[in-house]
Structure formats: structure tokens, C-alpha cells
């Protein structure tokens, strides 16, 4: 595993001058993922419509220090499939000689929701590409609307915390498991707070022959309403509360990568975020309890899949 000292000497494939929000998780996430490539490797990046794409390719400027293609919102999986198919075909015919890696970035909107079909197709067909979902748990580009990745209870502009309905009513979709069920060679869940975990998984994904999928928690200070500098702290809380476990599924084998040492109640993740503020109003204790139960249930299911002893840490 490379050290930061070593990594800092490598090529920066995602450069400054982009117009993502100050403190946006995506800038960090993309740098980490692309940093898993060797300096001499060639890469084509595909990107779904969203904050990342809009803010990084404002004509005539691009922040991508490599080949890049954006097509539409829901078709990054298919677009990059075509790029990869072209690569295979041209390589086979001897029309090109260089090696390439392929990586797609989509937000939770472009991945969990509108782009799910295209992603599913690309994974099922076995294209040799890496798809990274930068999950910030809502449609941030259009102004913080709920997605199927939005956690239960969150206040978004289309699941507002109102007098009758206190935020989003449904638990989030388990996309990482859905991708694992595609029986592709590599699936992982990681978070921006754990850079070593990200680096290891991105490295593995790029080395994988065939499709690889990474679901990466990449917080949005605007949508989550936490103090911008605290991004690492907030993402760590997601991991520590077991709300966002770190795991991977390699050739069908589930493996838990990190087990929190002590019990951290979900409140610690929810409390610093404005989108959950209403949950802490008197009378809403039940909602937090429901969220905790959901987290516990999912955690037990994950432990079972990973062949770990079923346990809920003492409260």
C-alpha cells in the first residue's frame, strides 16, 4: 500500500480550477480514485450529468487531465461500454496499441435511479470498466431532492420535513448489494473518510479483469448541512455508526473490511446534520429509533453475508 508521501509524487489527474462547491466531497473522492492508477497508465473517464460533470467541464476549461466523455444523465454505463468495446475492437484489429483503463463516475441520481438500467446492462455484459458511484444521498445538482439513496428521515426539497410527514419515509436502496448480485468480479463499498480503504479498493477495481463497482460515500455540505470543514468527521461517523459499513465482494465472497470497536448510536451521525435536525424535536424520538433499528437490521444481515458472528455491540 502506497504511502501519502509516495502518492503525492504521482500524477494529478483531476486538477484545480473546477467549480464544485468549496469543500465538496466529490473533488476529494475523484482525486483518490484516480490516484490509484499508475502514472504511465492511460484512462478514459466517463461521467454522468450531475454536479461533478457540470462543474468540471465548463467550456473551454476541463479539470480532467485525461480523456473524458459526458453523454447524458442516465447512460454513463452504456456510453463507457461503447468506449470499452471500441478499445477492444480497435486493439484486436491492431488499429491502436496503447492500453487503457476505463472509469465512470455517477452520483446517486445517475447510478441508483435514472442510470440503474444502463449500469446494470454494462455490468451484466462484462465490460472491463470500473464504475464509481459518488453517493451523496440526494440529487444535489438540481437542488437537493430525495433519491433512492437518501436515508430515512432526511429532509430534502422533495421529502421535506413537514408537519405531517417528517422527511423521507423509506429506507435507502441497497445498491451495493444489487451490484453484488450481478455476480461481477468486484464490488466494494467505501467512504471518503477512509482514504486507505478507498485507495486499496480503487486499486483492486482497476486491476480487476471485467466490471468492478465501487459505492463511495461522498458527503455534500450543502445538502447534508454540516459544517463544511468537517467532511471527514461526518463520513467517519457514517462508518462508525454502522450506517455505511466498509465491505467488498470479491468474486462472490463478501468480506467486512472494518468493524467498529465500540457502539456508536446513530444519533452521532444524524445530530451534526441540518437535514436531520427535525428528528431531534420533541416527539420524534420514535423516528430515530426506527432509523437505528434499520441500521441494526442491515448490519446483522451484512455480518451474516460476510460470515461474521452475528452481534450487536452492547448499548
Amino acid at each position, binding site marked *: 500500500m502506497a504511502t501519502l508521501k509516495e502518492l503525492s509524487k504521482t500524477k494529478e489527474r483531476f486538477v484545480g480550477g473546477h*467549480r*464544485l*462547491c*468549496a*469543500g*465538496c466531497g466529490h473533488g476529494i473522492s475523484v482525486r483518490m480514485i484516480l490516484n490509484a492508477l499508475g502514472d504511465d497508465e492511460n484512462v478514459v473517464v466517463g461521467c454522468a450529468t450531475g*454536479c461533478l460533470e*457540470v*462543474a468540471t467541464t*465548463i467550456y473551454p476549461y476541463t479539470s480532467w487531465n485525461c480523456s473524458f466523455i459526458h453523454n447524458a444523465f442516465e447512460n454513463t454505463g452504456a456510453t463507457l461500454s461503447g468506449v470499452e468495446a471500441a478499445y477492444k475492437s480497435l486493439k484486436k484489429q491492431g488499429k491502436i496499441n496503447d492500453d487503457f483503463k476505463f472509469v465512470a463516475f455517477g452520483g446517486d441520481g445517475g447510478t441508483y435511479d435514472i442510470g440503474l438500467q444502463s449500469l446494470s446492462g454494462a455490468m451484466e455484459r462484462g465490460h472491463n470498466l470500473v464504475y464509481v458511484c459518488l453517493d451523496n444521498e440526494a440529487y444535489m445538482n438540481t437542488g437537493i431532492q430525495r433519491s433512492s439513496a437518501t436515508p430515512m428521515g432526511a429532509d430534502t426539497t422533495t421529502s421535506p420535513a413537514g408537519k405531517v410527514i417528517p422527511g423521507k419515509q423509506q429506507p435507502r436502496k441497497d445498491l451495493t448489494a444489487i451490484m453484488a448480485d450481478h455476480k461481477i468480479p468486484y464490488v466494494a463499498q467505501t467512504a471518503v473518510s477512509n482514504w486507505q480503504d478507498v485507495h486499496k479498493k480503487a486499486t483492486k477495481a482497476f486491476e480487476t479483469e471485467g466490471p468492478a463497482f465501487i459505492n463511495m460515500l461522498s458527503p455534500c*455540505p*450543502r445538502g447534508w448541512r454540516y459544517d463544511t470543514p468537517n467532511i471527514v468527521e461526518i463520513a467517519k461517523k457514517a462508518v462508525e455508526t454502522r450506517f455505511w459499513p466498509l465491505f467488498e465482494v470479491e468474486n462472490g465472497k463478501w468480506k467486512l473490511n472494518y468493524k467498529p470497536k465500540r457502539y456508536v448510536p446513530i444519533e452521532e451521525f444524524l445530530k451534526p446534520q441540518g437535514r436531520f435536525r427535525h428528528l431531534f424535536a420533541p416527539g420524534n424520538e420514535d423516528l430515530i429509533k426506527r432509523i437505528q433499528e434499520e441500521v441494526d437490521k442491515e448490519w446483522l444481515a451484512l455480518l451474516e453475508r460476510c460470515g461474521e458472528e452475528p452481534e450487536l455491540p452492547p448499548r
Partner: protein
Amino acid sequence: MSKKVLEIRWHGRGGQGAKTAALMLAETIAQMGKYVQGFPEYGPERMGAPILAFNRISDEPIHIHSNVINPDIVIVLDATLLSEKITEGVPEDGIYIVNTTKTPQEVRKKLNLKGGKIFTVDANQISLETIGRVIPNTPLMGAFIKATGFMPYEEFIENVKRELEKKFRTKPEVIDGNIKAIERAYREVKGE
């Protein structure tokens, strides 16, 4: 162009409330029976990026929908935005209202400005002390009334109250804080 229409340009940063201020000012003035427009410039820039918002105010219906190019009044929400972009297109007798701890003379020097009238107010400090966090947009409306004498102060405050009550019915402390912020900015704004 005949200037029957008063035009205002707001300079702020994404997330600072320039758009909200422009819309709120428009709503407040609309209560006087005037015709108003309030609109932001929509760009790809994100939180923290310099952004613009605009107002038009007139006694007659406003039919134009082009961008504001030569504003009569410029309101700057963030002192770190002071640059030549602030004075772009502003006529000789333009009015500048700046949120800063600086004096109008210091701002004049910084902008290298010959004409115009400059007003300054520390809207950050005022909002922090009255509302509890740094949101300079409402106090700047108070500074605007003082600097322009656009409408009687009492009437303005009544109108703002009505607008705030629509938005924050359940949070009287927010209404009070904002009114206090406007009052203080009205009193504390410095001209040359």
C-alpha cells in the same frame, strides 16, 4: 435608455443569500404598489463562487427581460468580492452599498473609483449579533433604504415584517432578529 426603471445589482457568493435578498427586496417593495423584478444569474458555479442577482423597480409595468447591464445601485454582500467587476457598467452617479468593516473612503481607494456614492456597513457583525449567524443579506436592505431614501423607513419595516411573517410564522425569534438587523444597519451605515 430612459431611466424610469431603477436597477440594482447584487454581488454575493453562492450560498450567501444574494438571490434571497433580491427576491425579498422585490417582494417588500411590491407592497408599495410598485412593479418589481428580482432574479439571479444562473450559472454552473457552486457554493462560494461569486454570483450575481438583480432587481428592477418601476412605477409602471416592466416588460423588459434582458440582463441588468448598467445598474444604478450595486450592493456587495462580501468585502472579498471588491474588484473592478463591482464597478462594471455603473454610471457616474451610481450608488455602492458594501458589507465591510472598511470605511467608504477605503472602499473608494480599493475600487479606484472617482464618481459615485459609497456606503459601508458591517453587516456580518450585525447579523451575527442580531440573528445569531452571518447572513448579511437582510441588514443590507436596511442600508439600502438609508442610502437611497427609496421609501420611508417605517413603511419599509412594516413591509419587511409582513414578508418575514409569511416565511417564519412559527419562528418569531427569526423575525425579530432580522428586523433588529435591518434597524441596526439603517442606523450604522456610513456614507462619505
